[in-house]
């Protein structure tokens, strides 16, 4: 029992790390631009595919492919901010519907280019086993958790200490006031978008080797990431980290008592129950423009 508990906790932390990467990108973008990008899961998936492409066609090195796919997605993120989300700013409904359009376009573009079947991303780290106690985990599992931890740490330092990070925080606290004191909010917008989509690409590139690369691979991380954000409190960066991890661990542990098929529903039930009790999430950030 204890072994199973440990195993599911590590699995949960791994899944949770992936949700954290997705949630962080969405929460940063939401904070600065008040955009809820439902296409973030599709961008996550695109990150996985581009990593596969760079890995098999361009370089044989997995870390280089991950970085390349992050750069490519950052560029796509900037294009989307310019072409789609900025012109629709201020109209939440239209932004959400446009992002649904992006899901359709991206998922089916990938199917048209790479076919509907799952692709394998064979990297050495999936075959190396790491013993923890009496269990063995693929190195990639540990890698996902470690990389996410490092990225979260770096992101916090960036937001706290750097000039741009401070500008991002200022713009998400009060956009108008940030403009008044001379912060170039439009530059903040597109850099935040690039940062957010690059984090999604990192997530896709990290899980690709573990669970294959396929057109719907972003759907679950999208909704779990959203659940994590709501759980942590909309607009709260630490909340997104804690919320994502809670969702990941909760759904993994639920498999000990419930059929695995309902693992996804556990995340939503947790989210809805917590929201009914605490409408502003665990970290209780009150967002401007909400009720």
């Amino acid at each position, binding site marked *: 029992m204890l072994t199973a508990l440990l195993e599911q906790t590590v699995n949960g932390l791994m899944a949770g790390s992936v949700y954290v990467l997705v949630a962080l990108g969405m929460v940063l973008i939401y904070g600065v631009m008040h955009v*809820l990008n439902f296409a973030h899961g599709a961008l996550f998936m695109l990150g996985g595919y581009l990593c596969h492409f760079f890995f098999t066609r361009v370089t044989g090195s997995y870390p280089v492919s991950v970085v390349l796919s992050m750069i490519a997605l950052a560029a796509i993120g900037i294009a989307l901010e310019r072409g*789609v989300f900025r*012109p*629709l700013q201020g*109209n*939440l*409904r*239209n*932004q*959400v*519907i*446009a992002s*649904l*359009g*992006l*899901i*359709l*376009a*991206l*998922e*089916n*573009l990938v*199917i*048209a280019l790479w076919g509907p079947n799952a692709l394998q991303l064979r990297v050495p780290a999936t075959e190396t086993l790491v013993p923890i106690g009496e269990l063995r985990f693929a190195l990639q599992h540990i890698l996902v958790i470690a990389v996410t931890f490092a990225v979260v740490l770096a992101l916090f330092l960036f937001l706290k200490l750097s000039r741009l990070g401070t500008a991002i925080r200022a713009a998400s606290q009060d956009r108008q006031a940030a403009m008044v004191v001379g912060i170039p909010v439009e530059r903040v917008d597109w850099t935040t978008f690039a940062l957010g989509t690059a984090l999604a690409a990192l997530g896709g590139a990290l899980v690709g080797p573990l669970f294959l690369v396929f057109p719907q691979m972003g*759907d679950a991380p999208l*909704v779990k990431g*959203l*659940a994590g954000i*709501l759980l942590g409190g*909309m607009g709260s960066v630490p909340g997104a980290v804690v919320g994502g991890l809670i969702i990941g661990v909760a759904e993994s542990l639920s498999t000990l008592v419930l*059929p695995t*098929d*309902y693992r*996804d*529903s556990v995340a*939503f*039930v947790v*989210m*809805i129950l917590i*929201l*009914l009790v605490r*409408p502003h999430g665990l970290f209780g950030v009150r967002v401007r423009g*909400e*009720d």
Partner: protein
Amino acid sequence: MLKLAAVTGLTLALFAVPSMAADQPYLIHVLVLCCLYAIPAVGLNLMLGYTGLVSLGHMGFAGIGAYTAAVLMVDAGLGFWGALAAGLIAAAVAGAAIGAVCLRFRSHFFMIVTLAFGLMLYAVMNNWDGITRGAAGFPGIPRPGPLGPLSFGSLQDFYYLALSAALFAFLVQWRVVRSDFGRILMALRQDERLAQARGVNAMLYKTGVFALGSALAGLGGVLHVAFLRVAAPATFSFAESINIVLVVIVGGAGALAGPALGAVVYVGLPEYLRVASEWRLVLFGVLLVLLMRFAPRGMAGLLADGWQRLLRRSP
């Protein structure tokens, strides 16, 4: 008056299609599918277009109706009409119950919670093997039995049924929009606080429209599985919920004819464009983004603008 004549003419023409094109079962097949998409779209139009509730799990409620009817017909041996009524009621009750939870949340929160419920309903349809037969689908759903002198076994006859159901849905939409209930819904979309200050019980009306929209989704769902003769979870997935939003938006949210225009464009156009289905959805995705940027009122809005311009030009 002109409008009434046009709608009557169009209805008669649609009913005359099978006798004019008896040798074209493919055309009739496509028209049936248009009706089957238009019916849940009318439900969503009442919610999204008129009340401003963007539900991202709409097809989950179509699934509740469809699976309720399927279980009653196949396992309990109930006739089609009884099962249809039960499916509608089940979808409406589920819509009221789940809606009451979802409607405690606003804007983004509402969208995400409806999305979550849509996915949970899908998970149940996909995994509750004992009742729904799981991912493999629920086979052996009978075609509707005869109703008095009318029978619905053949494709043509089913077309009459689907068309009548679609007309019924549009009639409901028209009645609702022209009623006090509908005016309150629109007031809630425009300014909920103001409406509440005027004494409107917002929660009650929004739950009501959620239940009504879900019932219409259920009607579409039951007919869909009766047409395909199999209920599959994929018919009610998240992707289909997005597609139905697409139908409403492309047609024109908050326009009476919106769902019909949207369904014709969504189902009909690709059949004649003859492109691979992936590219067609890529096209629709891009179209959705472009519509949001340049014509957020959809086809109905574009047509209305064109008509206005035409009227102005001819003195």
